[in-house]
């Protein structure tokens, strides 16, 4: 089926090449003049024709226009514009180098992609962030953090203190696809959500798409966060880093062969355990508490049409208490990519990717000596083609396949009461093919539509059970390696349209349908590293979502202000919950413990952003509702999803005071999670038990917190920069509840009370940053 699509398109290519004799193509790569780093989504504009294009994620651009002489303007936020006149008699290949803006920071002229992109692009519900914008957002412990910044946007909500992951438009945590240089990241944070795994010094570009994703993305039904790392300077050696109170980071980049190849090594480690001896307790002294990230990249350009990239990521969190308990988890990924230019109009990227997430708990206490592990592993092959037909039409097509191995749980025991035990591995093949067309129908109308077909094959070796009403297995069937146990598939149409009302105002609408074949089962309502990834099987069907959205976008005062209003509605099928009293851990028959239902979410997102001036920043507000309906829960009546956040407000402000000082702040407020609290209690054999009535009928207390940051620039020159950042997380020490537990009062056992555990009080920090 995929072959048919490809053949069809190559045929069209031939036909159109012949018909395009009147046109010529200008193409090439746009890079940073000082480092050779490719610029993503840079602007290429033909002044006489009032048309243009943007560079793709590898810095490649291609624009096909009628033959003639034109003035081309190349621009990108943070760089000086380049304007050249080119006589386009034949197709020309020109690589452009843009010079970064002068280092005088009082200049705040921002031109380029960001001008009116939010109004004119067909990307709905999408935000693209380049690190220059991210540096000033105050986050914990002085480090800019891409995940925390994304959570300040409308429609994207943090999962709460101590939780890794986030919710997008009411979707679950596992419904967000997170890609780091095309490799899937299964757990994007360290230390229970306190830090993300992304070292911001090494990020080139980050794009968040809230659901109406174009056809080249799929596999998760709520959102895509596509992060591209820097490649490393191919002109000179650079060092960037920071030394902070609790963590430090260092990046080293440089050329392998000048102007042709470069490498980047980027690492980060915390050392919270260094401070433990200060508590003065001997037992704690032998404890460990740290995490690290290491990114390794190298690339080489063989010719103007071929480039190879190799990258690897290693990250781990390690907790340990003496010899007795050890708990660690982390991601590993490796990617090999090949960019190939078939012609000045046809760009391709082919990748081979390996990705692994696992956790392990080891217990050595008394007679017991055992280790528990679980995880998921992927091998992934994809090929993507971009055909820049002309300045008004761009096509994209390709295919992607994942071979998943699920390791739901294994206990290896060396002694004691516990026997070794293993829940069978599961295997699956996830495939998709897609075709997309982006077209400017006229000056006012733009469309971006496409079709994706995805499928999932549940493969052996394995054993499949069927269950009776009491969840007792009644039949059992074994499959060999490679045998297909079950299969699913479906079409995922994607559509979005932009209508330009005038140069600074537009109306956009979008529809998308998405399938998801892997699911995260959580052992509690807070996400933990011990949550288990499970595949689609006979019992667990693919999750499917349909989303429609409509938005109004307007810029004011020559793009100084950006604003938007978006509304969306999303429905989700085959959502998963546990049945009452489910047996969750190391259960060979975990599927029998699951119940299925539907979910829906709708909301209104308001956004106002100020781009220039000494004061910049934005305000996001989301009003929404997310509900679930399951025949087996709450007597079949619909109930609020845990992540139903009626109000979600973020205010971010950055103020530049003169040349040396930058002050930044953000304030977040959201309605507390929907939870189940007891309404009554009763006594059994001397024990007081809570009595529940409806599911998620109560709310946790509202969450709000203020973060502050102050950066002082110690020195800045053309080749180096040093600064020091002071920051305070949760400045007014709000005790946001992580859990609320209902228990017997310690003072009077006859009474019961509610006890709140708040995780993060006020956390101050200092970081010294450098780059040279």
């Amino acid at each position, binding site marked *: 089926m995929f072959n048919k699509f490809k053949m069809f398109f190559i045929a069209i290519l031939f036909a159109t090449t012949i018909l395009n004799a009147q046109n010529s193509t200008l193409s090439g790569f746009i890079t940073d003049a000082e480092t050779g780093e490719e610029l993503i989504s840079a602007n290429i504009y033909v002044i006489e024709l009032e048309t243009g294009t943007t560079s793709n994620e590898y810095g490649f651009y291609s624009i096909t226009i009628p033959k003639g002489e034109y003035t081309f303007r190349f621009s990108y936020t943070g760089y000086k514009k380049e304007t050249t006149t080119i006589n386009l008699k034949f197709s020309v290949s020109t690589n452009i180098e843009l010079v970064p803006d002068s280092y005088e920071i009082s200049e705040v002229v921002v031109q380029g992609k960001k001008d009116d992109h939010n109004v004119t692009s067909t990307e709905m519900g999408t935000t693209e962030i380049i690190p220059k914008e991210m540096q000033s957002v105050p986050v914990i412990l002085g480090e800019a953090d891409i995940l925390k910044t994304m959570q300040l946007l409308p429609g994207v909500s943090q999962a709460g203190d101590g939780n890794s992951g986030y919710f997008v438009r009411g979707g679950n945590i596992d419904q967000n696809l997170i890609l780091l240089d095309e490799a899937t990241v299964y757990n994007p944070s360290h230390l229970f959500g306190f830090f993300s795994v992304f070292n911001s010094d090494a990020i080139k570009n980050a794009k968040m798409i809230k659901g109406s994703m174009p056809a080249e993305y799929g596999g998760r039904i709520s959102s895509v966060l596509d992060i591209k790392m820097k490649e490393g300077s191919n002109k000179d050696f650079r060092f960037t880093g920071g030394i902070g109170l609790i963590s430090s980071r260092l990046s080293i980049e440089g050329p392998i062969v000048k102007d042709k190849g470069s490498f980047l090594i980027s690492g980060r480690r915390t050392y*919270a355990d260094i401070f433990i001896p200060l508590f003065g307790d001997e037992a704690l002294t032998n404890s460990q*508490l740290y995490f690290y990230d290491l990114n390794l990249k190298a690339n080489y350009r063989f010719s103007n049409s071929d480039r190879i990239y190799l990258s690897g990521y290693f990250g781990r969190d390690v907790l340990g208490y003496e010899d007795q308990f050890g708990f660690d988890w982390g991601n590993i990924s490796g990617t090999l990519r090949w960019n190939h230019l078939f012609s000045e109009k046809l760009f391709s990227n082919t990748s081979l990717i390996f990705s692994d997430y696992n956790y392990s708990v080891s217990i050595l206490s008394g007679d017991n000596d055992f280790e*528990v592990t679980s995880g998921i592993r992927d091998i992934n092959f994809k090929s993507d083609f971009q055909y820049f037909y002309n300045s008004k039409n761009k096509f994209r097509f390709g295919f992607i396949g994942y071979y998943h191995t699920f390791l739901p749980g294994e206990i290896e025991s060396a002694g004691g009461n516990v026997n070794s035990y293993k829940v069978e591995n599961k295997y699956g093949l996830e495939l998709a093919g897609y075709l997309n067309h982006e077209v400017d129908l006229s000056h006012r109308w733009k469309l971006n539509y496409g079709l994706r077909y995805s499928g999932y094959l549940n493969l052996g070796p394995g054993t499949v059970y069927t269950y009776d009403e009491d969840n007792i297995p009644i039949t059992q069937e074994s499959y060999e390696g490679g045998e297909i146990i079950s299969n699913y598939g479906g079409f995922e149409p994607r559509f979005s349209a932009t209508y330009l009302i005038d140069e600074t105002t537009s109306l956009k609408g979008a529809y998308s349908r998405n399938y998801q074949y892997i699911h995260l089962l959580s052992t509690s309502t807070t996400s933990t590293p011990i949550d288990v990834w499970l595949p689609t099987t006979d019992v667990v069907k693919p999750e499917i979502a349909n989303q429609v959205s409509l938005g109004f976008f307007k810029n004011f005062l020559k793009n100084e202000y950006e604003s938007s209003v978006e509304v969306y509605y999303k429905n989700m099928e085959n959502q998963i919950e546990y049945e009452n009293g489910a047996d969750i851990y190391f259960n060979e028959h975990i599927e029998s413990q699951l119940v299925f239902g539907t979910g829906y979410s709708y909301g209104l997102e308001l956004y106002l952003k100020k781009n220039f001036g000494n004061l910049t920043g934005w305000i996001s507000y989301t009003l929404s509702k997310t509900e679930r309906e399951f025949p087996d829960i709450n007597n079949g009546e619909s109930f609020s999803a845990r992540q139903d956040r009626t109000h979600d407000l973020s205010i971010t402000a950055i103020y530049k005071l003169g040349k040396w000082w930058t002050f930044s702040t953000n304030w977040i407020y959201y309605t507390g999670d929907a939870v189940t609290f007891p309404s009554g209690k*009763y006594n059994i054999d001397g024990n007081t*038990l809570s009595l*529940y009535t409806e599911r998620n009928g109560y709310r946790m207390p509202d969450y709000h917190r203020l973060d502050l940051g102050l950066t002082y620039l110690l020195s800045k020159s053309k080749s180096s920069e040093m600064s020091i950042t002071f920051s305070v997380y949760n400045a007014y020490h709000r005790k946001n509840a992580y859990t609320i*537990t209902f*228990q017997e009062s310690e003072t009077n*056992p006859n009474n019961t009370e509610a006890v709140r555990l708040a995780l993060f009080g006020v956390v101050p920090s200092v970081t010294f940053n450098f780059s040279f």
Partner: protein
Amino acid sequence: MKNHTYIIKELMLSLFFISLSLVFISCEDVIEIELTGVDPAIVIEAGISDDGSVSSAIITKSTDFFEPGVYEKVSNAIVVINDDDGNSYQMMEVDDGEYQTDLITGQSGSTYSIEVNAEGQIYNAESSMPIKIVLDSLSLELAPDRPNQEEGEERYFLHIYFKDPPEIDNYCRFKITVEEELLTGFIIYEDKFTDGNDIDVRIILDNKELDLNIGDLIEVDLLSIDKAAFDFYNTANSVNTAGSSGRGSSSTSAAPTNPVTNWNNKALGFFSAYTVSQDSIIFEK
């Protein structure tokens, strides 16, 4: 839940909270929360054992959560227990809400059913008495010190030794009484990972909570229970506000529901047929 996945769960979650509070300035305090009330629901706790003691039923009502722990007792109910030979025995009300009969002694392998007629509603349940498991012996051991442990706050391991019958699914509950006071929390066991092994269940006795003195009598009842009772105790632990087995009922529970019950008509509680094996040990330092 299996004994050892239970330990794993406990340890993993404890590690979590230890590590979280280690690093961050986290804190715990009592807060005011408003909870809506609920109409009092009927609670029936009934059982039959094999040791010749009385078969009993206790019938009470629930109350609103922040009210004092005073539970209305239900009198004048008709409680009848039947064995699988068709014999019926009625329990007499010996105290408010408490019903008993000593005319029937349970036997492993038999199935018993019970019918309760209270306040115009009829409730039925059934339970099979499982194979007897014999408690071999007990021992006490001093546990390693915790961080910041002070004098008088030591912990001890109470070891309970028994042999798990192989080739059958076995479920147990341990009732531990220290100087006639029953420890709270439902301490349960399942042989999912330990079938047929010589078992050593280790219970932590915390002097911080118990105030143990030399010469104190510690009694242990090993109850062999059926799966339905095990499921009840297991799910009840996640809503238990007291005891070390439940960390109170937490807002983070993934499937927050009332315990599974074998009563048919929306009664809380359960009916269980079980065997009992007892032993005791004197606490010495």
